[in-house]
């Protein structure tokens, strides 16, 4: 995977670089930032995260399993306690709820991991230690011939440093 990486020190210049690149359509853009900034979100205008679907499905699975295990096991060996219903759904709601939360959360985490492709051992190409500190990064995935164009653009936008990644 090859492309061009621009390292920025200023938020606004990063934003303008991204908007430029989107106009030019030089290739997939990856933006690195030490934290979340809406300015960047706006500029990237990426698709909505699909993690919520994982959450929904996980939650539904959880709640149904919770109720099921409680009711099934009560009827499996019926024992009356305190003259209460052998399978009494009201208290079992608590089980259902807790299991829903449990499975729902774990599914959410799974969704996040899968979609953001972690865990991974290497930070792969185009990453720079400074991005976790104070700098922003813009990486364009493109071949050699488009590269120079990208470099100019990044420099013009105010990148402190521009380099090719091979």
């Amino acid at each position, binding site marked *: 995977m090859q492309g061009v990486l621009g390292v920025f020190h200023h938020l606004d210049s990063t934003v303008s670089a991204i908007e430029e690149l989107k106009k030019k359509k030089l290739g997939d853009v990856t933006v690195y930032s030490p934290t979340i900034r809406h300015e960047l979100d706006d500029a990237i205008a990426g698709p909505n995260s699909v993690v919520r679907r994982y959450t929904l499905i996980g939650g539904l699975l959880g709640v149904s399993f919770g109720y099921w295990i409680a009711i099934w096991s009560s009827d499996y*060996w019926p*024992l009356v306690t305190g003259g209460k219903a052998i399978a009494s759904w009201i208290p079992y709601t608590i089980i259902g709820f807790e299991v829903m939360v449990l499975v729902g959360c774990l599914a959410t985490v799974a969704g996040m991991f899968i979609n953001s*492709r972690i*865990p*991974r*051992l*290497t930070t792969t190409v185009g990453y720079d230690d400074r991005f976790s500190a104070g700098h922003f990064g813009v990486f364009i995935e493109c071949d050699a011939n488009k590269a120079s164009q990208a470099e100019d653009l990044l420099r013009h936008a105010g990148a402190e440093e521009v380099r090719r990644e091979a």
Partner: protein
Amino acid sequence: MTVKKKWTVIPGFLALAAAATLLSAYSGASSSQGKIVEQPVKFVHAPHVQKAGMNCLYCHSAANKAPDPGNASVSTCMGCYTLVKPQSAEIKKVAAFYQKGQPIPWNRVHKVPDYVQFPHMRHVNAGVTCQTCHGQIQNQGAQGPDTNYVPVQQVNSLNMGWCINCHVQGYKPAEGARLAGQKVTPELEAMPAKKARYDCAVCHY
């Protein structure tokens, strides 16, 4: 990419471990199924049952009237063995006990925990064959005490699930007869499974 795979196996391991735990828990790994105990006298059931055609109740006389089946007294043994091959090594041992007026210290093979009340007579009188729980005891020591002798062993797990299964699903007379090596008549086959109580306080108190 290969690196990524390396990380994804970890959940796999966890899943395996969990499965193993559940399996062992479910299989009743804690039971003493298959236990074999050496006995002070190399007793052989087969000759008594098959050759001599003795009924189980001849020695385990209380099996049909008491919780505890009881065991033949030495005098009962000697009743026959003063006449029948008194020279055999094992019989000599029995005789020795008889002289000393001591009981034979049999080692217990089938043992349910002390918090389990197991009334033999209820089972025997309900027609459950001895073999249903004790395995094909009638064949034990078929070749006598000297040739490839195997002492009495615990054939079934005797754990709670095993008991309950029969109490709930019911005891099939045909099945019991087959184990006992009896003729399985169509009537037997026709018989419905005999269900029993499975309330906790039937066995635990």
